[in-house]
């Protein structure tokens, strides 16, 4: 269990370097079109990969997870705030599982 602190430290150091490096080093825009495009796509792909199918595995009932995904997607699509989308997903799962579980 002690190595949990090492995981935290490794992630903390790496994420800090990622955050700090560009502000201190890159004074001019990155030129490579590939790198720019790649970096632009990375967050959306990563977050999508991490969301599905994890969201349907997190709940007790898969239908609840699928409905949370659909409702959350619709809410986010219409630019609802981060907080509101999160709450909508929770409420959907709660309501569906009251009926199905």
């Amino acid at each position, binding site marked *: 269990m002690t190595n949990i602190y090492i995981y*935290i430290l490794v992630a903390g150091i790496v994420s800090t370097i990622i955050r*700090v490096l560009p502000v201190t080093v890159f004074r001019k825009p990155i030129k490579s079109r590939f790198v720019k495009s790649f*970096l632009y796509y990375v967050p959306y792909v*990563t977050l999508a990969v991490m969301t599905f199918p994890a969201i349907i595995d997190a709940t007790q009932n898969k239908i609840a997870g699928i409905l949370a*995904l659909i409702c959350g997607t619709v809410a986010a699509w219409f630019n609802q705030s981060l907080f509101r989308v999160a709450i909508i997903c929770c409420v959907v799962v*709660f309501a569906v599982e009251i009926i199905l579980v």
Partner: protein
Amino acid sequence: MNNIYQNSKKTIIKEGIRDGFPIALGYFAVAFSLGIIARKANFTPLQGFINSFLNHASAGEYAVYTVASANSAYVVMAVMTIVVNARYLLMSTALSQKFDEATSMLHRILVGFTVTDELFAITIKRPGVIEPLYNYAAFLIAAFCWSLGTACGIVAGELMPLRLVSALSVALYGMFLACIMPEARKHRIVAVLIAVSFVLSYFASRLTVFSGISAGTKTIILTVVIASVAAILFPHPEVEDDD
């Protein structure tokens, strides 16, 4: 003159707190659900608090819990952190253009440390050059609630009925959706990529051929492959200027 300067400093800090407060409330709730995941990975409340304060990124911390509970190598942790936080490279790059040239290196480093999706958003929206004090004020209140929320989730997660845990555990995915969908609406290619990512991620997790590969490694491989192919086929014309 000195007095005016002092006042404006106060105003900047006040504005930071004002803008950071709603973010902090949202963070507390989402971090609570992250705490539930942290609990499953056997993290103590203190470990959750420290992790949240140092990493302050939902996806990044989620990666820590995934990697730690799988007992993967520290290298996997480092690579995973780079992959899930790669967007901060872009945000930090965007911020680097917004600094006053006279801003000291220390302020640049500290402001860089405060970057999260939401704090980046309010910083970019603010007219003029970056005022480090504004970022510190907004960050401190938001990060404190974020860390506290994680610790509370680890503590109270155990006391909560299964039904409530189940419901709260999707909050994080809701947050991910809120981060990606607005961009998908603006750019059809992003929407397509998200759909492709969903499908490939589903197969990667369900097909027995890939069952030997850890979830974290799968995320890295899928991200690099999908984003690379997309960058070659559909180079994004104006990455920084689309807002």
